[in-house]
């Protein structure tokens, strides 16, 4: 719809109209033989109606000249998967990075503005303005709705990968359908750019981590990696992920996604080699300069047996508003039998945590201290 109309908001309104009509009509008249085609046809015709009524959109004259579509003309095969065009448009360099991420999450991920705002720790109002400005810029400045031509494609990829990864992470916290969407996008990118190691690296990372989805929660409660029921791990996804990792490494990949995928792959071995994992986190921290990665290295060091080194590293990091920092400190302090400090750290983590399941997990750990 967006490719057809060149306007996000108009496409959204037309789609909503179509769904509203369907909701009202289909229970009475029965579901059409091809519901998707009916919806798209109806949405297109509603959009044409709106444009005709709105004179200021006279620039879209070419649409007025199009005959109204009929259902017979559309079948499943003519409905294009525009998600790749959409993701490259959303990630166009003329948009600020935070706008790229927000727009992709909103249009491809289907998150609400409020959910996106919470994910990035900004007020909803700020995020709403960011989205509006970005959509206006796409329309007004003529950002094309397309997959970039070959000479531009490599440069446009880095932003797209970053955004896909962010979508995956939002899904990984519990919204499973978002993770699947990110993996689908990642798979499509891997087909489109088979010689890019980081594309395979990202796909590998997402697959291996997502494979553990069913085991991460039991009855809505968080289950740590070491306690997970491995029969719930998706072995096929892990295999697919490792195949993608092999491709990335064969292409010489030592970038952030390939490294993270290698770490993820090591995590799901029967006896994870924590020292090797810690070393890879160290390499990754050098490549990215990320304190969060250093926090992961701290945890790996502790798992390898060096709890004090892990705690020292964790406490050197400037991540005071990051609940995982305090949760990690709390756990390491507990192992060192520093109970009061551990309690304080759990309380601080509880102030900052978002997810209800993680809140309950932290509360349980806190209660076990007493």
């Amino acid at each position, binding site marked *: 719809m967006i490719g057809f109309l060149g306007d996000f908001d108009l496409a959204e309104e037309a789609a909503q109209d179509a769904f509203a009509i369907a909701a009202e009509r289909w229970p009475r008249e029965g579901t059409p033989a091809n519901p998707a085609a009916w919806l798209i046809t109806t949405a297109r015709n509603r959009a044409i109606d709106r444009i005709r009524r709105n004179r200021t959109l006279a620039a879209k004259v070419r649409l007025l000249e199009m005959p109204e579509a009929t259902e017979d003309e559309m079948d499943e095969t003519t409905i294009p998967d525009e998600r790749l065009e959409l993701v490259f448009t959303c990630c166009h360099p003329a948009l600020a990075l935070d706008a790229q991420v927000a727009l992709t999450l909103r249009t491809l991920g289907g998150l609400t503005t409020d959910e996106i705002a919470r994910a990035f720790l900004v007020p909803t109002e700020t995020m709403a303005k960011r989205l509006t400005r970005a959509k206006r810029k796409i329309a007004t400045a*003529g950002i094309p709705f397309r997959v970039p031509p070959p000479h531009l494609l490599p440069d446009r990829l880095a932003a797209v990968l970053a955004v896909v990864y962010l979508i995956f992470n939002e899904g990984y916290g519990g919204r499973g359908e978002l993770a699947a969407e990110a993996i689908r996008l990642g798979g499509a990118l891997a087909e489109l750019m088979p010689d890019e190691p980081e594309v395979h690296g990202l796909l590998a990372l997402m697959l291996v981590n997502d494979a553990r989805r069913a085991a991460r929660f039991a009855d809505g409660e968080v289950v740590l990696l070491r306690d997970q029921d491995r029969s719930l791990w998706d072995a096929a996804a892990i295999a697919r992920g490792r195949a993608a990792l092999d491709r990335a490494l064969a292409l010489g990949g030592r970038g952030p996604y390939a490294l993270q995928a290698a770490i993820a792959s090591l995590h799901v071995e029967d006896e994870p080699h924590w020292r090797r994992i810690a070393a890879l986190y160290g390499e990754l921290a050098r490549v990215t300069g990320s304190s969060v990665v250093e926090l992961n290295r701290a945890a790996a060091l502790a798992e390898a047996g060096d709890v004090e080194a892990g705690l020292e590293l964790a406490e050197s990091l400037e991540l005071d508003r990051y609940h995982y920092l305090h949760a990690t400190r709390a756990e390491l302090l507990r192992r060192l039998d520093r109970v009061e400090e551990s309690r304080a750290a759990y309380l601080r983590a509880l102030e900052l945590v978002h997810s209800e399941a993680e809140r309950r997990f932290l509360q349980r750990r806190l209660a076990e201290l007493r």
Partner: protein
Amino acid sequence: MKYVLLIHQGDTPLPGTDEWAQLSEDEQKAVYADYQAINQTPGVTPSDVWLESPETATTVRVQDGQTLTTDGPFVSVKEALGGWLVFEADNLDAAIELAARIPAARMGGGIEVRPVKE
């Protein structure tokens, strides 16, 4: 779509300056050739107005009914406008590619690509 490409020379060596004289003859010729090629690009309306340098500008503001005049451009001299082109293009990517060919873009200045209201 119509775009205006606003050329900010920034640190770009300009004819008549010492910095320009320090460029090789080939580099100087390349600059002229690039501008000529750009002016001949389909869709480009060459500008018949070329501005004097930003140092020659005067900025006018009115505050509480008083006209205030300051020497120089509205922004810093380095940031000020040097000239512009009008370009009819299919989309922003095409305008960006043209902007990248303008010498100022690679020599210490920047090109602002702004869509024209339709």
